[in-house]
């Protein structure tokens, strides 16, 4: 055979925090690469919201009265929907890692526990940044007319980041409990469905009784209200704080659940 060195190396000292950071970075790189290899998924995550945006603006928009241009009303909804799609694919990635032995491989290596998951989460943030930017760009082309200051944009981005992080960790937890990628993909419909029963697409006052109550309780409602207020330069009231509180809570719960699910030894 060749001259490759297979001599066992002395057992290295336990990895320090710097090693942990480097390992996590390597796994982020892996997940981002994976995203670019799933072009069909990536395209769907961008194109579907764009198609929905166009449909809502040109087809349904005329029939929904919101007291403002419908395109201005609906952009936060589309942005939240986009984030949902971007986050949901994480469940499929995690589930396939769990079932095909990759996670076991990393767990049997001196790699920090959970760094694989962190990799998927950061990749989800990156995917969402790209698809959200694209959707907003298309929205601007079809007449979206924001009146936000730089600070408003930043605040909106902040709310959106917390929202995406929370949904992504929910997706991670789904990926960890699902029996496989297909099952995981099925479960994520919950994430995708949330914005429809909220104030994102129509004012909740127009909904029938029960749905209206559900919509008022739905954390997507304060989130879309907050984004709308920030982007259109309207008073935000308590919406930003309520939205942040909701998603920070979901984030913590999903993060802890994922850690527990990941650590459980079978």
């Amino acid at each position: 055979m060749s001259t490759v060195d297979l001599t066992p190396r002395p057992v290295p000292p336990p990895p320090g925090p710097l090693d942990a950071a480097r390992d996590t970075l390597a796994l982020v790189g892996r997940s981002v690469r994976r995203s670019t290899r799933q072009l069909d998924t990536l395209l769907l995550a961008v194109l579907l919201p764009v198609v929905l945006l166009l449909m809502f603006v040109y087809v349904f928009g005329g029939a929904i009265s919101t007291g403002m241009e419908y395109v201005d009303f609906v952009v936060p909804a589309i942005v939240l929907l986009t984030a949902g799609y971007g986050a949901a694919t994480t469940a499929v990635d995690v589930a396939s890692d769990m079932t095909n032995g990759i996670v076991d491989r990393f767990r049997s290596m001196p790699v920090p526990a959970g760094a694989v998951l962190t990799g998927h989460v950061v990749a989800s943030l990156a995917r969402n940044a790209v698809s959200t930017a694209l959707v907003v760009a298309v929205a601007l082309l079809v007449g979206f007319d924001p009146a936000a200051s730089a600070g408003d944009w930043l605040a909106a981005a902040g709310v959106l980041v917390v929202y995406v992080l929370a949904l992504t960790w929910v997706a991670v937890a789904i990926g960890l409990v699902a029996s496989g990628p297909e099952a995981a993909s099925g479960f994520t419909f919950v994430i995708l469905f949330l914005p429809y029963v909220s104030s994102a697409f129509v004012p909740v006052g127009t909904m029938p009784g029960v749905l209206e109550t559900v919509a008022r309780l739905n954390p997507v409602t304060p989130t879309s209200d907050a984004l709308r207020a920030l982007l259109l330069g309207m008073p935000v009231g308590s919406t930003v704080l309520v939205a942040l509180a909701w998603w920070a809570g979901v984030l913590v719960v999903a993060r802890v659940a994922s850690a527990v699910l990941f650590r459980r030894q079978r």
Partner: protein
Amino acid sequence: MEEPVIETRGLRKAYGGRPVLDGVDLTVRRGQVLALLGPNGAGKTTTVRILSTLVAPDGGTARVAGFDVRTEAARVRAALSLTGQYAAVDELLTGEENVRLAARLAHVPRRQVRERAAEMLALFDLTDAARRTVRTYSGGMRRRLDLAVSLLSRPQVLVLDEPTTGLDPRSRAALWDVVRSVVAAGGTVLLTTQYLEEADALADRVAVIDRGVVVADGTAAELKAAVGSAHVELALADGRTERLATDGTVGDVRRVLGEVERRGLDVVHWQVRTPTLDDAFLALTGHDAGTADRTPALATTAQEPR
């Protein structure tokens, strides 16, 4: 004497109240290949998963390179590489990307990552396929890539869980060569297998595991010897089979055949049989290893009737 590289004592594990490992004792010394031989469901994978810190044992101790799998898991992980029963490589990445990721995670110095990855790909004959995504790889190529990933970190201990199950003969032979090079370089290997001939060909020591218990532990020769000696097996014209003991040397076989002639036996077919690990397994566990498709003629020399 130097401390064993792998040592388990009284390893126990139960799933849902059903014992899967019931006191497994194993010892592997530096530079050895230990084959953990047993049928499906014997507890091989469970043992391997405990050694690689993926599963916590219910009882007993396991040490790898001197580190306890429970209390020093991080050190164990740094000392050992596991190649599981199914290739654990990223389907969406190329072969090269998989190996480079492994190199980074093994903390290969940044400037050596490329070189080291290329080397490993070449060693496993994957250079031409390096830029293709693993999704396009055959089963044999995936296994080779998996092994390249495992060996990249130059582990003290290489653990292979049924490495050749489902491989074609050529890939199997190639894998055997790799195991031999690892050992030649000073590595230690624990491999599980259902194939007696694999244990016979590769292992310095064979531990036979059945229903969570090691029922025999020794060299392949010792196991075979424990089962009985070589004999000349005669198929007679009247349908009977006769066995005459021999030590298997040319001179002694000639002596036995002389006796056959003197007795005027009417032989249709004869062969010298030395006990195979199949025989050993049957004798040790009371059932065969479930490898009916494998040739039992491993240590048999057959002759046409004279």
